């Protein structure tokens, strides 16, 4: 019985191969885009975890505060099993430097290379400052000791002895002391031993994981959006198949197959699709991840300084989760149909229920649901706090707009019917209205994809325009110079001062700002800054007060995170407690930052030796000065950089940042286009009984085909019209809610009507392409096939 019934059910797919293709490809695309994004995220998180676990710091408590190696010695002498750690970025490189003490590092710590056969010689070199260990692929400046490649290190990591690391980073401080297990009882508490220090819990995530969480959340959101768009296709295909097989299901029931058995057989069928489409999707996801990972790795390095391996290594959990998502997607997409089947009366009408679906009650329910969801989106935007509220807002906005599409479309088409001149135009509008239920899922998918494109495109456009202006302000100086050491810095300054308009030092030091890692810069009093610095908020007379050593400027990230704006007081760690004189935009910087006047900076960081300078001079003189400096001081090209190169580099990082989302956008639009094509093609066959009477009354197949094209264009045009405000609202949420929560800065929304119009045009082109084949088939359809509609023996 099972075999015969399953054979009858599967025979449907043999007769409708396109529907089968739609179902499998839709599910594979959905699974593929989702698993692709998950693969990228998993790879990145693996790299972060590897970096966080280098010293076992992900499992050990730590002592934090203003600490030096002397404090380390004090704690060790008191009997505490502690080991010092210093972290920073290698100057002139993107590599992360980790300073350790090999003698006190935890035994479980993975410090590869120090335990090899030539351990003694290696250790001597390591301690003596002539050897560091670097992960494969790390490029280091010549000024660093010899780097030995160690395959076991986390991507982008360099390990040096703590004293060597201090020398490289130009500091006498350490970041923290890791507290190893096995401390004797009765020891003087560390907080007593080292006043001002405090014990902190293990860093289970690591700084990189925290910093990049929002980026990965963005990727996940796009993966989910693509998955949802794919599910729309699957839902449409399954729903259609159930409707078309309704007579068969009724017959099977009438022949004695119990409803429970029939439901089970259809569930088995769905499980088969899960395996096939899941496997295809996982392969597709691997391809997507492999294609996008280098871009993501470059983005993470550029935006966050996070190093991620550029090649994929996938765990069995990932494979299984791919199948799990495919199965979950099918349950979501096909569950409703299975539920209906289980409750289907044996004598239920066998006619397609497309019209029933279009009934006003369904549309009304959709409309109410859409309005409620838009209300939720509004509430989340106004009252919500945090990234999760931002994404609730995004999800409710997109889903609400999608649900509102069919009722709004019906209203517009009703208006078209009333206003239509001529019977064919009236039929065209009425026919379009009748197609809304059958096409609504595909149109919703198109709306989501278009809105995502408009939204992300507007966000990126706003970001690009603001960022370019910001760079023009921040990088006002013509040349930027980095000396190798203090002596060279002094020589360079002495040589340059009579030859350029101004030599502006750029001193900086790492500091704990409002309890989080950050950096403090010193800024000379110069017209360059007074005229160009991009202040978002300021007290009166800000520049004179800064020059006088009062207060500090802070970047937007620090201001938003701490909720402190101009006039408030901020704890700047070694920079002291200071009034915030102004807040400046600092796009692309994940860290908090503060600026002190030069005198105040010198007082706070007396040991800081400034090696970086900005030079003001007539732009035309810059190339000659670069040549002169390179020849006279033997400066390598990476130590003297002109403004244009920095801007190009910064914009390059920016473009890379959004390359991944742009790629996902295009893929999502492609999926929606495929959904529309599949729906139109399937409906083209199903709606023959509706077209044939019009043909029989004297309308040529050519005119009917053109009407089909026009119908697709009308529906796509209205979808695009609704997608634009949805997309703009999406852009606003991204810029004003998600971006602020994720990156710590807010950008103005800049309208790009030209881009929106172009996208709407592309939607029309996609709809025309999607409708072209079904229309062409109708045009070329033999009359005998149309006549079959009227044959009562059919």
């Amino acid at each position, binding site marked *: 019985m099972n075999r015969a019934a399953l054979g009858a059910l599967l025979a449907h797919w043999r007769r409708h191969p396109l529907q089968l293709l739609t179902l499998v490809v839709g599910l594979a695309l959905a699974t593929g885009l989702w698993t692709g994004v998950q693969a990228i995220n998993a790879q990145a998180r693996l790299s972060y975890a590897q970096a966080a676990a280098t010293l076992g710091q992900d499992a050990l408590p730590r002592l934090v505060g203003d600490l030096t190696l002397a404090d380390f010695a004090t704690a060790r002498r008191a009997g505490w099993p502690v080991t010092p750690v210093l972290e920073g970025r290698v100057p002139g490189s993107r590599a992360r430097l980790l300073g350790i003490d090999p003698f006190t590092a935890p035994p479980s710590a993975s410090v590869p290379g120090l335990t090899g056969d030539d351990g003694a010689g290696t250790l001597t070199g390591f301690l003596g400052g002539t050897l560091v260990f670097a992960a494969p692929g790390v490029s280091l400046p010549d000024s660093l000791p010899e780097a030995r490649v160690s395959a076991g290190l986390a991507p982008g990591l360099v390990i040096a002895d703590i004293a060597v690391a201090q020398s490289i980073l130009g500091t006498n401080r350490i970041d923290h002391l890791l507290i190893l297990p096995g401390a004797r009882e009765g020891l003087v508490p560390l907080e007593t031993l080292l006043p001002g220090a405090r014990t902190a819990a293990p860093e289970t995530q690591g700084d990189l994981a925290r910093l990049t969480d929002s980026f990965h959340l963005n990727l996940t959101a796009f993966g989910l959006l693509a998955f949802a768009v794919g599910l729309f296709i699957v839902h449409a295909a399954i729903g259609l198949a159930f409707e078309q097989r309704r007579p068969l299901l009724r017959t099977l029931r009438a022949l004695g197959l119990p409803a429970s058995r029939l439901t089970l057989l259809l569930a088995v069928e769905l499980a088969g699709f899960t395996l096939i489409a899941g496997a295809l999707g996982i392969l597709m996801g691997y391809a997507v991840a492999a294609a996008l990972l280098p871009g993501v790795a470059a983005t993470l390095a550029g935006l966050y300084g996070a190093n991620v391996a550029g090649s994929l290594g996938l765990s069995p959990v990932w494979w299984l989760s791919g199948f799990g998502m495919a199965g979950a997607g099918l349950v979501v997409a096909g569950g409703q149909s299975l539920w209906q089947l289980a409750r289907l009366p044996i004598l239920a009408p066998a006619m397609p229920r497309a019209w029933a679906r279009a009934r006003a009650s369904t549309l009304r329910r959709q409309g109410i649901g859409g309005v409620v969801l838009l209300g939720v989106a509004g509430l989340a935007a106004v009252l919500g706090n945090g990234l999760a509220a931002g994404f609730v807002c995004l999800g409710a906005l997109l889903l609400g707009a999608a649900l509102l599409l069919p009722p709004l479309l019906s209203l517009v088409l009703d208006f078209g019917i009333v206003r239509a001149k001529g019977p064919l135009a009236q*039929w065209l509008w009425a026919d379009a209205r*009748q197609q809304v239920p059958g096409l609504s899922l595909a149109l919703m998918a198109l709306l989501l994809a278009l809105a995502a494109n408009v939204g992300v495109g507007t966000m990126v456009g706003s970001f690009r325009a603001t960022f370019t202006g910001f760079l023009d302000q921040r990088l006002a100086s013509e040349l930027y110079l980095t000396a190798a050491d203090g002596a060279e810095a002094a020589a360079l300054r002495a040589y340059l001062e009579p030859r350029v308009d101004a030599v502006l030092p750029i001193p900086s030091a790492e500091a704990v700002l409002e309890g989080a890692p950050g950096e403090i810069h010193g800024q000379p009093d110069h017209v360059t800054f007074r005229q160009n610095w991009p202040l978002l908020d300021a007290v009166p007379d800000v520049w004179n007060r800064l020059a006088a050593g009062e207060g500090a400027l802070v970047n937007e990230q620090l201001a938003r995170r701490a909720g402190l704006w101009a006039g408030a007081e901020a704890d700047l760690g070694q920079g002291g407690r200071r009034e915030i004189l102004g807040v400046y935009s600092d796009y692309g910087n994940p860290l908090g930052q503060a600026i002190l006047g030069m005198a105040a900076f010198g007082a706070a960081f007396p040991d800081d030796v400034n090696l970086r300078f900005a030079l003001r001079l007539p732009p035309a003189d810059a190339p000659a000065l670069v040549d002169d400096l390179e020849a006279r001081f033997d400066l390598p090209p990476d130590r003297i950089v002109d403004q244009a190169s920095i801007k190009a580099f910064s914009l390059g990082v920016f473009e890379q940042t959004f390359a991944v989302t742009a790629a996902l956008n295009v893929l999502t639009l492609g999926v929606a286009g495929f959904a529309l094509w599949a729906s139109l093609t399937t409906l083209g066959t199903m709606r023959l009984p509706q077209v044939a009477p019009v043909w029989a009354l004297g309308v040529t197949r050519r005119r009917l085909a053109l009407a089909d094209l026009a119908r697709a264009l009308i529906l796509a045009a209205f979808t695009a019209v609704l997608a634009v405000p949805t997309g703009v609202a999406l852009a606003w949420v991204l810029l004003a809610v998600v971006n602020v929560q994720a990156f710590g800065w807010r950008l103005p929304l800049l309208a790009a009507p030209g881009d929106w119009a172009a996208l709407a045009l592309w939607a029309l082109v996609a709809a025309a392409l999607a409708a072209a084949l079904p229309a062409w088939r109708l045009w070329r359809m033999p*009359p005998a096939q149309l006549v079959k509609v009227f044959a009562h023996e059919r």
Partner: protein
Amino acid sequence: MLLTVRDVGKSFETADGPQPVLRGVSLTLAAGRTLALTGESGSGKSTLLHLIGGLDTPDEGAIEIDGRDIGAMDDAGRAAIRRDGVGLIFQQFNLIPSLDVGANLGFHARLAGRDPGDLKLLAARLGLTEHLGRYPEQLSGGQQQRVAIGRTLAARPRLVLADEPTGNLDETTGDAMMALMRDLARDSGAGLLMVTHSARLALMLDARLHLRAGRIEDAP
């Protein structure tokens, strides 16, 4: 002569090769006259009706409506004949599901560029006044067939072709539909060619022809 069918033949391709459905069929119908075409299932009645309506083309022979050979016309020409000169009534009604009753009633006439007249009056005559704003799927079979007949009435074609128009209706409703169609032919001076299985209904028309295995026989 309104309709002339001369030596028409038609075959369909099947897995076993071409299968002849009509063999040398000839008939004529004058304006204002009614003709019943009877025959068993598969005898070719509907195929002949479709050929006369320009829905398909004969393999051989000629079909003339008002002296014009529709077999020699292209797709657009045959569409124009259907639009302007022929009214088709089917067993399955074949209304346009996306249009309400009112729009369905006037559709064919407006397509042919004619004024459909007072549709409310027509609806009242058909007993459809209360259903003008409804859609075909909301009507019973008899009501749908009345809309189909009304659509043809409003279009005022020269030739009405009806394919088993009462096949899906009970006897009482079917008889009412027959009366309507005869009125239609009589009022407009149109010719009516009706395909039917029913000898009883066939007897209601002016003349009868019987089709057996694709050939015309005299009516039994």
